[in-house]
């Protein structure tokens, strides 16, 4: 049993507990210090990851492969950005508690386990560890009615999804006799073993994971939770867990159930179309920027599912590249949203951005870059991601899906450029407060990455290629 393969996860879990103990014992306000320590822990974990070996450990339950490495690094980066984004907001909104970064660490451990899972049980453990931490985070502003509501809502619906997931797992186990991904694949390679029970189990698992990535029709919780949760939590929820869940989704669909492509492909095509279309149309009428971002992320999940539905190595590569562009664009976008404050009060209506181009040109320019990127306008990172995903759809002959995706893209451009219109064309609203350095750094980093990604995509593409190959072998 090669337990060293899970060393990064173990290190991160132990460091998380150590920071928790440290925070408890140190009787003063240690939010800032613990945040810094947590960032350090994440970076140390990344170092362990890069230096770590690859292979399958824990009797086939845990795999450290290039795919897991790629996604884990992305998740770690997203978590670091998530903590940085929270620093100033939590100071201001009286959420200065050291548990915050620790919860993010635990969520990250959960995500890393999800990404490496090669057994349905490991998968479930990872998903739960991740989700439980995030339920608490969503309700972190416990004196705020909306935040508590968001946490409760997410918890109840998330528990339901977990139930569905478990039920699916039990069906698959019951009909195939194993929980191990490789063994399931072996069993299902023989068409005679593909019974209705397995297919139902797969659909249940897919539904639960669709809930985690908030794809239509399991998206209902997203707008409310995004709006109610404290902004930095929304920022975090929109990036790292989505990445991990999407990666897990891809691994589960391709590795154990790859032979059932014909069974699940149409299901995924439907949820993909639903997500893209809903994301495009429902976001139009939103006045609250966090709600808008919720619908926007539903749309983005739709595009990612295009890559998943393609069911090919090219599709998986597309997903990974899209996730890279998504994480950094999203982090920058939320850094701007979290920083929206007027006279010390957080504001989150789109109208509050009125005339931002005049009152704070730097932030307006950064937001413009993010919005064009999300709309998929070249040369920004979002375009590169979409390009690689649609390449996969075309390659697999999914023309209808590609066509609908393009149409949804055009429609969603409308609400993205509407925000740009508010910032540049409208009369100035009273100016927003100056943004703290931490947010400016994240926004600046995101803007630069989003802008220059198209110049040097080759290394990322090569890494994504290698990662996708690891799954398809």
């Amino acid at each position, binding site marked *: 049993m090669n337990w060293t393969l899970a060393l990064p996860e173990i290190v991160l879990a132990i460091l998380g507990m150590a920071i928790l103990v440290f925070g408890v014992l140190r009787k003063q306000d240690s939010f800032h210090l613990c945040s810094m320590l947590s960032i350090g822990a994440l970076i140390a974990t990344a170092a362990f990851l890069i230096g770590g070996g690859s292979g399958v450990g824990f009797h086939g339950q845990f795999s450290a492969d290039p795919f897991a490495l790629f996604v884990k690094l992305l998740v770690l980066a997203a978590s670091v950005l998530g903590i940085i984004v929270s620093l100033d907001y939590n100071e201001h909104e009286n959420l200065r508690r050291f548990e915050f970064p620790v919860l993010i660490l635990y969520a990250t451990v959960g995500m890393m386990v999800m990404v490496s899972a090669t057994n349905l049980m490991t998968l479930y453990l990872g998903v739960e560890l991740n989700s439980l931490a995030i339920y608490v985070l969503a309700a972190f502003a416990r004196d705020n009615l909306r935040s508590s509501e968001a946490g409760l809502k997410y918890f109840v619906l998330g528990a339901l999804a977990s139930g569905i997931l478990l039920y699916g797992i039990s069906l698959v186990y019951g009909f195939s006799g194993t929980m191990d991904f490789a063994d399931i694949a072996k069993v299902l390679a023989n068409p005679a073993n593909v019974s209705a029970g397995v297919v139902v189990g797969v659909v249940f698992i897919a539904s639960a994971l669709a809930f985690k990535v908030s794809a239509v029709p399991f998206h209902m919780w997203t707008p409310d939770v995004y709006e109610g949760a404290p902004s930095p939590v929304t920022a975090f929820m929109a990036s790292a867990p989505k990445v991990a869940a999407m990666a897990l989704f891809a691994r589960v669909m391709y590795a154990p159930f790859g032979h059932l492509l014909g069974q699940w492909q149409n299901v995924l095509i439907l949820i993909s179309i639903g997500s893209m279309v809903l994301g495009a149309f429902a976001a139009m009428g939103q006045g609250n920027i966090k709600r808008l971002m919720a619908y926007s992320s539903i749309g983005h999940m739709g595009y990612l599912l295009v890559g998943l539905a393609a069911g090919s190595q090219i599709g998986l*590569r597309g997903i990974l590249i899209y996730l890279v562009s998504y994480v950094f664009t999203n982090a920058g976008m939320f850094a701007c949203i979290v920083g929206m404050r007027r006279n010390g009060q957080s504001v989150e209506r789109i109208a509050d951005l009125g005339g931002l*181009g*005049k009152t704070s*040109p730097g932030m307006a320019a950064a937001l413009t870059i993010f919005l*064009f990127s999300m709309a998929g*306008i*070249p*040369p920004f990172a979002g*375009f590169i991601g979409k*390009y*690689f995903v*649609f*390449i996969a759809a*075309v*390659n697999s002959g999914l023309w209808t899906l*590609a*066509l609908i995706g*393009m*149409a949804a*893209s*055009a429609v969603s*451009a*409308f609400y993205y*450029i*509407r925000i*740009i*219109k508010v910032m*540049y*064309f409208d009369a100035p609203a009273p100016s927003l407060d100056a943004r703290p350095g931490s947010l400016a750094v994240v926004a600046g980093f995101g803007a630069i990455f989003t802008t220059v990604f*198209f110049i040097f*995509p*080759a290394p990322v*593409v*090569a890494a994504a*290629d290698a990662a996708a190959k690891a799954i398809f072998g």
Partner: protein
Amino acid sequence: MTAFGFPLLSLLTFLPLVGVAIILSVRGDEKAVASNARWTALWTTIVVFALSLVLWAKFDRSNAGFQFTETVAWMPQVGLTYKMGVDGISVLFVLLSTALTPLCILASWESIQTRVRDYMIAFLVLETMMIGSFCALDFLVFYMFFEGVLIPMYLIIGIWGGPRRVYSAFKFFLYTLAGSLLMLLAILAMWNFAGTTDIATLMHTVFPKSMQMWLFLAFLASFAVKVPMFPVHTWLPDAHVEAPTAGSVILAGVLLKMGAYGFLRFSIPMLPLASADFAPVIFALSVVAVIYTSLVALAQTDMKKLIAYSSVAHMGVVTIGIFTFNAQGMGGAIFQMLSHGVVSAALFLCVGVVYDRIHTREIARYGGLANRMPGYALAFMLFTMASVGLPGTAGFAGEILVLIGSFKVSIWLAIFGGMGMILGACYMLYLYRRVMFGKLTRADLMSILDLSPREIMTFAPLVVLTIWMGVYPSSFTSFFDATVNSLVEHHQAALAATTKLAGVAH
């Protein structure tokens, strides 16, 4: 890196961004920043123009292929390379872009007073995108520049435009985006078929006929919006009317040409069978555009709108020429594009001159300007004549070549296309009479001033070009003759190959 010694085309494309960096680095009070932005933008665009003259001098006119090519590996995993180069079709459009941009900066010198810095940045980025899309030799690279144009143009219309600027900016953006996304899908399909998006390779890839039809329609969706062709031209009058003067100039002068350029560069060489099959549809739409929009132009009360509709009509002549598939028609179309680029740009500048003074574009508000503004009247007269297609001006050679080309296809096509010239004379001369002649009645017109030295500097190059293109067109046609001939041959060979195959099959 390139046969020429240094990457001239990349330099031309990205030099404006250096200007952006300089403008961004300047700090200080608003006035200093504005003045600095103006001068930096002007000098950057002048340097780019001077550099682009190397193309004029060194371009081998007898060579039909791509020249000044550069290649850099970009995303080898999907067969994507950064490839630049120009041939006879594109080289003059690069020059047109580099020539018009400094004039646009000059024209905005005083009329743009708010957020000058942002404005100049937008224009420099726009120049990068324009030059890039004409130089790109990879379809995806082209697409990135082609789409990238939307960003600065959306901001230019939306921020510095007229009262209905928001509506116009949205319409412009969404129309163009919807069309281009279909083109992107077609690009992906081509990539899937050929394994590359390299233009030179795709030109020699034979796509199955049924696939060509779909690809052609997808391209049509994008290029027809950009040209613009009837019935998707409705964004143009709105965008023109609301855009600031320089925005209209660049829109009419260069951006519209991108659509027609797309037909020449992609649709016809890559999809010869579909192009031949769809030619009658294009002819029909073009003829409708020529006649219908000319009539609409006749009824306009807004100067800019009138010229915008005349642009649609002129571009209709261009699309007729392109789809005649003979050397005269295609050459004429390219020449018409160039002359329209100069003349319509100049006409929009002319409108800008009086708009800056009186702040209205209502034709009825003017009259008798010739009395107070003889210099302006002369320039306007020249450009009006060029727009009408008077021999000796830029507009003539292109239209006559297209007419000759369309005669070879069908006499009716020539007759209907020729209607555009007649109607063009009607609405342009009618416009000129209403604005220039008659009595000066309004008080504010009594004291209107003639062209300022800055405006004379803006118009002088356009006047020279208009006459030069009219008197000695072959100094321009010689650039693209070889390429057009090879394009025609390529097209006929492709058609012949299929007929042969069909013969074998039967």
